[in-house]
């Protein structure tokens, strides 16, 4: 827009030119890292409540594997790790400017991410069928709230990833400007990181 | 309405009042210094036709002075209060031999149960009365606070005692009445539409009279159980 000319266009992947040195990274990446700070605090409140409640009444939690289906979620965790790898491969190919590899890696990430959500929905259906529901007690309340909101974040991530993939197919991401891929990658890895912690403290402890 | 605290009638109320007045004096001095200083600066340094402000970015020495003075005052207040807090609510602050009285808060009334002859709460011979707390003079009392529905707060202004009764928790808090007479007990935590009506009367008797009252009420209750016990 009209005012953009004050922001020089030479390299958008570096901090804004003609400005005091700030964080050393371009605006969108800094914005995403700051946003992830707030996400950390959001999961702090949910996981913190879980840790506090479980510390208070450990007897209300079943030993690992008794109620929750660990094998299926272990595969699911591996799926999410793979989607992190495909995401980072997509970013690497975006850096190299290899459009075809970028598109295929992005597609792979979208598919694996969506299948993670699918497996989680299946796991929920299985649990609810078995009578393990949020109103069952502390165990059900904390489990469904934490994994539910993590699933919600993964779903939002998959939707954004689809949008980025659609733009990739339009060739919007070149070697000099692939901010979208890097920023959605940061969000995706964060969601994967949260799941890695969640998987351990919910399923394995 | 006097600015001083109302007359107190329990053992540690004097410590609380003393701390209150200490802080009132300290903050009073600080209040005067700041307000008078402000008024003085406003008058002295108001804009004059060709007045010139002093170009200075501040003096580190002055900053260090008021920072350290404030810090010292604040730490002193903290140390003084920590002692009193520990005596009132510390882990082993409840004096031995304190009379256990069950204070059960429920939406909009207090059920106060007195230990029967065995002196223990929760045994069969307890006497439960609605909104009436009768206490012997100069005897430590430990109130065992429980709540049935929302959070209530056991607050007797004259004894300077306040403690929330949290559902799912049993909280023990002690006090020792030092004056006979009747005082009022109120709920100090919003607990629903009748929160303002959770009023109970606290009556402090001399020792013998308290015992006589307890026996008389015990006999009356034994004769015909009150509605409360038949939940």
């Amino acid at each position, binding site marked *: 827009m009209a005012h953009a000319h004050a922001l020089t266009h030479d*390299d958008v992947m570096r901090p804004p030119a003609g400005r005091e040195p700030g*964080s*050393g*990274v371009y605006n969108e*990446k*800094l914005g995403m*890292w*700051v946003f*992830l*700070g*707030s996400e*950390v*605090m959001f999961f*702090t*409140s949910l996981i*913190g409540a879980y*840790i*506090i409640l479980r*510390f*208070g009444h450990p007897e209300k939690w079943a030993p*690992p*594997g008794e109620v929750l289906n*660990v094998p299926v979620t*272990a595969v699911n*965790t*591996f799926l999410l*790790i*793979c989607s*992190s*790898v495909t*995401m*980072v*491969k997509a970013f*690497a190919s975006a*850096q*190299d400017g290899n459009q075809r590899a970028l598109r295929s890696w992005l597609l792979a990430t979208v598919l694996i991410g969506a299948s993670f959500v699918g497996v989680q929905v299946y796991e929920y259906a299985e649990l609810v069928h078995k009578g393990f529901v949020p109103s069952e007690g502390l165990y059900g309340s904390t489990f469904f709230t934490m994994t539910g909101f993590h699933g919600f974040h993964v779903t939002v991530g998959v939707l954004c990833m689809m949008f980025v993939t659609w733009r990739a197919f339009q060739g919007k991401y070149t*070697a*000099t400007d692939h901010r979208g891929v890097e920023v959605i*990658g*940061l969000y995706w*890895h*964060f969601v*994967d*990181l949260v799941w*890695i*912690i969640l*998987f*351990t*403290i919910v*399923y*394995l*402890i | 309405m006097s600015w001083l605290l109302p007359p107190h009638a329990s053992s540690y109320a004097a410590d609380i009042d003393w701390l209150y007045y200490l802080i009132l004096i300290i903050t009073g001095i600080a209040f005067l210094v700041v307000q008078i200083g402000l008024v003085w600066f406003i008058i002295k340094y108001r804009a004059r036709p060709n007045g010139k402000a002093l170009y200075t970015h501040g003096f580190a020495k002055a900053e260090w002075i008021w920072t350290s003075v404030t810090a010292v005052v604040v730490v002193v207040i903290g140390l003084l209060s920590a002692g009193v807090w520990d005596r009132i609510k510390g*882990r082993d602050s409840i004096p031995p031999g304190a009379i256990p009285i069950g204070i059960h808060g429920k939406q909009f009334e207090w059920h106060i149960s007195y230990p029967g002859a065995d002196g223990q709460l929760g045994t069969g011979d307890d006497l439960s009365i609605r909104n009436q707390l009768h206490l012997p003079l100069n005897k430590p009392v430990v109130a065992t606070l429980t709540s049935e529905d929302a959070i209530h707060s056991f607050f007797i202004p004259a004894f300077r005692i306040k403690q929330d009764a949290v559902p799912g928790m049993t909280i023990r808090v002690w006090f020792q009445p030092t004056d006979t007479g009747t005082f009022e007990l109120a709920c100090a935590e919003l607990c629903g539409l009748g929160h303002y009506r959770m009023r109970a009367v606290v009556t402090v008797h001399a020792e013998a009279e308290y015992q006589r009252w307890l026996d008389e009420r015990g006999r009356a209750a034994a004769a015909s159980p009150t509605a409360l016990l038949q939940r």
Partner: protein
Amino acid sequence: MEQVKHSHPNYIGIWVALAVLTAVELGVAFLPWSKTTLILLLIGLALWKALLVALYFMHLRFEPNRLRILAIAPLPLAVILVTAVITEYFW
């Protein structure tokens, strides 16, 4: 200043490490050790995996220090909240 094909961190290596660590976690979780050692070990493994993802996948290793500080700024707050509320039980 065209970015020539620059070196990428060994992503596949990290992937394998994560997979192995997950497998180890699964193994450890069902061992009959004492509860506390199990919890500490599992949380340690989880934090190790999380660190790997953060350093290599989120490139924190290659970012300026200012961004790293900014990234880990909220963590002490989480620790303050949980430890303070847990002391609620030691009364």
